[in-house]
């Protein structure tokens, strides 16, 4: 085997000896000549022959197809038959107004822990007879155990191992998907619908992780490759790997669990208070009642010592996650850290996000990142770096 060019650590380091799992689209990735890497226990495409830069730009210009089948899909049904019971039970685990999610809609949510930290971020979709919960790959077993432990005695829970998940993202996504399912044009951002695509029962949500209009499509595993190939047959669609998925979500200001949020960050520090609707806030109809509610609602009222912000490197050098931030170019006083950083192909300059002391969180403030022994200026910036094109 040819030696690889000095692999970067996050992609290639074998974390354990367990064999990598494969998604239902694994053979498709290989046939498309993807470069495969281990990610969250799966053998996943980091890029295809076009490369990360072109894949990123193509997604914003036309449409990109992503295999996100490694993510966890969980169905929650109420034994009582009343979905409101399941909604209220879910509210005991997330600071989100789940009861207020209308049928055919979905909402971003967070599993919190007793200290107010974040166990995972997720999507909760309300279908006529059940909730569909989509969680991160690396967290899915823990999330399912968490749901089982708290809701398992009263509710039916199933981790759907036999379904793939595709994301079709970009300005051409609607027209491309409309060729397979005409009703797609009626959907708005964060709508969710059950659909038959070539007689295959799918669940489509108008959402994604790129800042673009687009869709996520849950498909029975044995039909996923057929539908993926039909989408890829469209001249506007290219397959997109995890590399561009990361740079797209970073330009869009979206958090990556494990990098930008984790059990040591609370939703208020992470600037995710928008995910806590009025009903769950102090004074709301169903205030609190989720793990860590005391700490989180107190943080919402009184503020936090640190805040997640956008960071724009003033030079050309990308500042990656892990870089320490200082108050000035002497590097004497630490004021924060970068949690994600990359080159932003669409904006044409490096982009990053991270945490700074709250007093420095005002856009326009300059902080300094340590890079290869120097201290380089970064400007605290409003997120996202691009203008999202969600169809609201």
């Amino acid at each position, binding site marked *: 085997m*040819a030696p690889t*060019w000095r692999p970067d650590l*996050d*992609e290639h380091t074998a974390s354990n000896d367990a064999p990598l799992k494969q998604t239902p689209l694994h053979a498709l990735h290989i046939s498309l000549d993807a470069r495969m890497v281990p990610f969250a226990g799966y053998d996943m495409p980091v890029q295809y022959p076009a490369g990360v*830069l072109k894949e990123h730009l193509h997604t914003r210009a036309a449409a990109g197809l992503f295999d996100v089948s490694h993510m966890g899909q969980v169905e929650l049904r109420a034994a009582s038959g009343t979905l409101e019971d399941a909604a209220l039970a879910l509210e005991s685990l997330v600071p989100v107004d789940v009861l207020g999610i209308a049928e055919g809609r979905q909402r971003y949510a967070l599993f919190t822990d007793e200290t107010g930290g974040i166990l995972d971020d997720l999507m909760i979709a309300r279908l006529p007879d059940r909730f569909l919960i989509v969680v991160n790959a690396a967290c899915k077993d823990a999330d399912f155990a968490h749901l089982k432990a708290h809701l398992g005695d009263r509710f039916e829970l199933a981790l759907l191992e036999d379904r793939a998940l595709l994301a079709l993202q970009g300005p051409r996504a609607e027209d491309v998907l409309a060729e397979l399912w005409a009703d797609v044009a009626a959907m708005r951002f964060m709508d969710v619908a059950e659909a038959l695509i070539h007689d295959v029962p799918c669940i489509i949500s108008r959402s994604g992780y790129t800042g673009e209009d687009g869709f996520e499509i849950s498909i029975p595993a044995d039909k996923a490759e057929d539908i993926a190939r039909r989408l890829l047959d469209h001249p506007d669609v290219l397959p997109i790997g995890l*590399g561009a998925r990361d740079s797209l979500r970073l330009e869009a200001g979206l958090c990556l669990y494990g990098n930008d949020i984790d059990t040591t960050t609370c939703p208020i520090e992470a600037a995710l208070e928008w995910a806590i609707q009025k009903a769950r806030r102090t004074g709301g109809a169903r205030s609190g009642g989720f793990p860590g509610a005391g700490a989180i609602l107190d943080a919402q009222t009184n503020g936090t010592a640190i805040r997640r912000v956008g960071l724009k490197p003033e030079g*050309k050098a*990308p500042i990656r996650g892990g870089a320490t931030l200082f108050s000035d170019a002497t590097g004497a006083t630490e004021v924060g850290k970068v949690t994600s950083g*990359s*080159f932003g192909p669409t904006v044409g300059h490096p982009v990053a996000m991270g945490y700074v002391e709250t007093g420095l969180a005002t856009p326009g403030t300059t902080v300094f990142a340590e890079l290869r022994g120097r201290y380089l200026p970064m400007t605290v910036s409003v997120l996202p770096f691009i203008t999202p094109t969600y169809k609201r």
Partner: protein
Amino acid sequence: MLKFTDEHEWLQIDGDVATVGITKHAADQLGDLVFVELPETGTALTKGESAATVESVKAASDVYCPLDGEILETNPAIVEDPALVNGDPQGAGWFFKLKLSDPSAANALLDEDAYKELIA
């Protein structure tokens, strides 16, 4: 004399000066470069020391100094347009010129056939 390292640098050696860059294989593996940082002229470097940094969208990688020497000149064109490295890695995408402390040390490096075998 054209030589290669197992870290995927090439050296075009003329007397005691080596023009250094990264191989096509390396450029292909890295993908589209978006940032290049080159050493200061006059810097003395030892073999294996980091001489330059290249970054793709995803990751940063070091380019190592292939032999002991002093940086005589660098290529500002690749700093201005890192895509030059992907487009012409063994020509216009050169990185720096190195005044070799010991030109005979180059004999121990790989020749083109040996490098091709390495990446085969």
